[in-house]
């Protein structure tokens, strides 16, 4: 490891604001809402770095800004201000929030993979599992049908979906299977970073375990960097090397995952850890 190791992803001072804001916002926030003008500060000065091959966990309650961060990174929402750099895109020199719409599509297709909590957002439920993957490969510029089929087969095997079912539409699959198809789609073009937004939420424990297994396998086999959002500390404990704790749109604490769990500093983190079953 070199001390000058370049991060795969760097986010600097991300703000996502709903409302115009006012001079009183800085001192009149109740949770993340200004009591004077009503502006909601969904992300309030978020900065972070994700390094090669690591899992960075983001934990926090609903409304803490976790998903706002993920959706900003995947261009689903437009940040109010801030910069983000991806080492896999123009050597980390270009602020990805300032590039053209075509370049953003290129980044989504080639550099980042996203897995949403709700598979409906990440999959076309009426297309076959293989077509979902092919769509992503086509978007990246490939037109070779044979190669696309082979890649879909390889990815579905990796996520333990029977290739005999690759022609079936995800709407016929269980929640856990849909999530695994979504993960395989996100991996289609070998992204350098995977964004996982509450991917195990709402799944049965045994199905959850399978998805977690899969994430671990992806990390170990592909050496891919992962930004993992979860409100579940047990998931973070299992997978994350480092963890960031968010509350009311802000990062309130960050550290090595075991340190966050064994020696939490912030009152909210202590409360969260003490609630862990």
């Amino acid at each position, binding site marked *: *490891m070199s*001390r000058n*190791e370049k991060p795969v992803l760097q986010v600097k001072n991300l703000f996502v604001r709903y409302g115009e804001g006012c001079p009183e916002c800085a001192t009149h926030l109740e949770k993340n809402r200004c009591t004077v003008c009503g502006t909601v500060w969904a992300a309030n000065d978020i900065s972070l770095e994700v*390094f090669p091959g*690591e899992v960075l966990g983001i934990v926090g309650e609903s409304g803490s800004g976790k998903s706002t961060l993920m959706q900003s990174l995947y261009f689903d929402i437009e940040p109010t201000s801030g910069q983000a750099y991806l080492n896999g895109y123009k050597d980390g020199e270009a602020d990805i929030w300032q590039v053209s719409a075509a370049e953003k599509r290129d980044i989504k297709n080639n550099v980042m993979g996203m897995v949403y909590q709700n598979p409906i957002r990440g999959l076309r439920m009426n297309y076959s599992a293989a077509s979902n993957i092919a769509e992503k490969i086509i978007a990246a510029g490939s037109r070779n049908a044979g190669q696309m089929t082979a890649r879909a087969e390889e990815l579905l095997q990796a996520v333990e979906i029977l290739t005999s079912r690759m022609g079936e539409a995800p709407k016929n699959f269980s929640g856990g299977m849909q999530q695994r198809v979504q993960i395989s789609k996100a991996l289609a073009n070998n992204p350098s970073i995977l964004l996982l937004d509450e991917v195990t939420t709402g799944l049965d424990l045994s199905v959850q*375990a399978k998805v*977690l*297994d899969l994430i*671990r396998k992806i990390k*170990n086999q592909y050496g891919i960097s992962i930004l993992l959002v979860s409100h579940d500390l047990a998931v973070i404990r*299992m997978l994350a*090397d*480092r963890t960031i704790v968010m509350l009311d749109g802000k990062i309130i604490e960050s*550290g*090595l995952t*075991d*340190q966050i769990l*064994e*020696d939490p*500093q*912030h*009152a909210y983190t*202590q*409360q969260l850890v*003490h609630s862990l079953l």
Partner: protein
Amino acid sequence: MMHILEIKDLTKNFYLHEANREIKSCKNVSFTLDEGQFIGIVGLSGAGKSTILKCINRSYLATSGEIIYNSQAFGKIDLTKASEREILYLRKHEIGYVSQFLNVMPRTTAKEHVMNALLETGEAMSSAKKRAEEMLAYFKLPEELWDIYPNTFSGGERLRLNLAHTMVKTPRLMLLDEPTASLDNKTKVLVKDMLIKLKDQKTSMIGIFHDLEFMDGVCDKVFNITEGRIL
């Protein structure tokens, strides 16, 4: 002889927000550890023994003081201030920590758990498998347990797996937090032999033990910790 570790005025307090209370754990602890040296720490429960090891491992954040580790990768580095990435690297490659508790990924077999310690340092799958099997055999973990998940293991079996997981990497600095608790006498002898072997290979160690007899012939120095201070 070169100090591998130099602890200067290490103090650790815990502040519990809900109770609005500060708990003092260790206070102004200072000592040095040489290459290949073994320091034993004894003391009553709650005296602050584990806190020292956890501050070195950075599972706890020191309140004040310095922990200077002479690393192969980074030279002299203060573990209280090193970056998280540096600590993660050192944990993978140079510093091992064995506790009484087994922390295994769910659905990971005993053998995979030991192999993972090597795989994350970049070792090839075939040699990781071979070395993991040798280590499990050394600690006499029955072969029929190697390919099953350890959540059904007894306390002694878990501890042996923990030891195998850490020792297979032959770390430069090993932190042992009551590694012999819940072991039978036969296994204790195995552990002791392994520690002596590692010491001969210049691994430096700090260990917490309740078993004073076990420390005989292994430890070069023994510190008694009372109320967070070395007596």
